[in-house]
């Protein structure tokens, strides 16, 4: 997976492998910004499959997640076929042609195998989880008018959760579980250097060390990996050679995004850094 710009750690790699072999969905949990969504994207790139994404939010219902009847088209069909007998029309209007496919349906019905990403499942209601169960265990969807639609190809399903509420046992039971943590120092360095190759190794190490220091503080929102990559790019743009107090104070807003956090970080981390040797341009 390194080839597609994602450096997975051992468990993540193993679980993705198992997910493919066993045909089971994976439930990925972890703090915000450790690359949960990115994992799914990387999987889709690595396997060459299309990524179908369902972003969850409160109040998401099956009409938006599964399927909906295209009633305008149905209406037209009825009006257009005025001469045909009612029975013809009746059988006709509940055909696949009149079905509006939503992400889940799309993933199931796709002739090519896909990667299905159900993002932030914890944002939805429990009722929605229950609806997912059929899909997750049997890869099929029951439409009352049509019967069951089963998957022709086995999608890789990734569910992500920010752990903002406890998911139901039934859902967990059907999934493999993966907990993603912030990566080790070495790995994060590799990740940063993968995305900002021009960054010198010494600076990358220094930067990751500072980021880890910041994460150790009790912040409202600790910096994510994406933010450390952003920071790396910023440092490149600024032409910085070392992270001293001045550079840090200038670019801190990239990794720290709360007013109170900024104060805390400046106080705790800023002072540990060296005074600038010479004024920055």
């Amino acid at each position, binding site marked *: 997976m390194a080839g597609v710009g994602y450096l997975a750690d051992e468990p993540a790699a*193993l679980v993705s492998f198992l997910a493919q*072999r*066993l045909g089971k969905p994976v439930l990925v949990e972890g703090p915000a910004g450790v690359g949960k969504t990115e994992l799914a994207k990387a999987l889709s790139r690595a396997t060459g499959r299309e990524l179908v994404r369902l972003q969850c939010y409160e109040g998401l219902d099956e009409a938006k997640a599964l399927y909906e009847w295209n009633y305008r088209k149905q*209406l037209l069909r*009825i*009006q257009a076929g005025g001469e045909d007998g009612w029975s013809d029309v009746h059988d006709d209007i509940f055909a696949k042609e009149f079905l509006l496919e939503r992400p889940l349906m799309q993933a199931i019905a796709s002739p090519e195998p896909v990667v299905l990403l159900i993002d932030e499942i914890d944002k939805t209601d429990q009722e929605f989880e229950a609806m997912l169960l059929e899909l997750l265990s049997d890869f099929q969807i029951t439409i009352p008018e049509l019967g069951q639609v089963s998957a022709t190809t086995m999608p890789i399903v990734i569910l992500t959760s920010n752990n*903002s509420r*406890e998911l139901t*046992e039934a859902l*967990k039971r059907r999934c493999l579980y993966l907990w993603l943590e912030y990566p080790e120092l070495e790995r994060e360095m590799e990740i940063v250097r993968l995305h900002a190759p021009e960054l010198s190794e010494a600076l990358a190490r220094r930067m990751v060390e500072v980021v880890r220091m910041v994460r150790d503080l009790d912040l409202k929102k600790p910096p994510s990996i994406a933010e450390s990559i952003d920071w790396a790019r910023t440092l490149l743009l600024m032409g910085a050679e070392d992270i001293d107090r001045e550079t840090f104070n200038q670019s801190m807003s990239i990794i720290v995004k709360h007013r109170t956090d900024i104060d805390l970080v400046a106080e705790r981390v800023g002072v540990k850094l060296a005074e600038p040797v010479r004024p920055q341009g």
Partner: protein
Amino acid sequence: MPSPYGPKAEAGPPGLAAKLLGFCEELRGEGVAVGTSEILDAFAALEEVPWTSREDFREALATTIAKSQEDRRLFELLFDRWFFRAAESEAIARGVEEGEQRHEGAERLDLDELQEQIRQAIVDGNDGEMRDLARLAISAFGRQGEGSGVVGVDVQRIRRTLGLSAGTQPQAEDGAAELPPIDRAQLNAFERHLRRELERDLIERTSTLPPSRPLAELDRALPTSPTQDLAAVHRAVSQMKRRLATLGNEQRGRRRGATVDVRRTMRTSLETGGVPMHIRYRPKRPRRPEIYVLCDVSTSVTSASVFFLSVLHALHDSFRKLRSFVFIERISEVTDVFEHERDFRAIAQRISSEGGVADVSGYTDYGRVWLEFLGTISDDLDPRSTVIVLGDARTNGREPHAEVFAQVSERAGRLFWLNPEPKLYWNYGDSVMAAYERYCDGAFECWTTRHLENFVNIVAGGVPVAD
């Protein structure tokens, strides 16, 4: 404790499958919900990974069996123990002994050299090396017959003899090169190896396994929760959610003001050739119950307030329309805190620091609390809302304002009182429970999760609903 999964399975013939089942049984014993489907998954997963690689094997098991962070923690603790024990008991059964070969070279080893090697291995974090050296160290020191027989004591003794300590190393006296600092975690890893090897020795000497103990409470105390039964509270509350949500829905009659569902009306009109003959209305969705929880956090209920806060915490997990308040002398809304924070400890801390109930005397003033509650919130109360009070009704001799409380009760659909004191103590001293009790739809003692479950049952069992 009887297992919810029925009697233990027979151990069956020796082999990996039996060992795995035993491991799952052990996990269940520690409260991890391992269902049959999980076990099946685990076996399926093991067919895909080489079982000779310890890391892969462990990850494959963990991902199929442990379905939350807490479960994962228990899994890690038990995994090492179980498979170590399994290997050892097998060794005893087959009479395998490592014999003398492991001590080979121990005599030849110079203490200083050994010390240096170990230090290097720890600094490098080389796991395999550390284990080998741990064996060497044990045989080097164990030879002198100094083993105390208590593993923990021996570990520390060996560590001290080797002069290992975490942090930066003291400067050597002879002015030799400065030693690199030792990481605390790495040192712990080395100590674990020592412990493991010592246990192995002990088992080999005595040919018996020490009895398996359930994990010490300390070991399994979850880092996020100060109370052991947080999970139990969550269970009871999620039960309560289901019951409260379905309660009282059936009485709702046909109301005026139904809205036409255009989409469905059009769809039905298909049956009549596009002429909308039947009007479809939007279904009346059951309203989610609105819940107001008032929680006493004063000193008189200090011990109970942790429990109450965890109840609140669990409630917030289950109910969307929940507003929570904490009070001592004054009342303060803390809904925000719960919505933005998931970690229980952080919540407890934030409430104590910015709850805004910090006051002059620190004594509860129920009368004032009711006045303030009614003043700020009463407009929002309606017959659908449920108010739950968590408190001991000790007013410290102040005016209880029961008539104000009665007004709250009148406005709200239902009002329950959970008291952290046993019923025996109600109305003794400054407790004015009786004054409030008659305005409640129910008052219950509640100081364990069992009481909480009881409360849920009674609520669901048809207490007259006021609306």
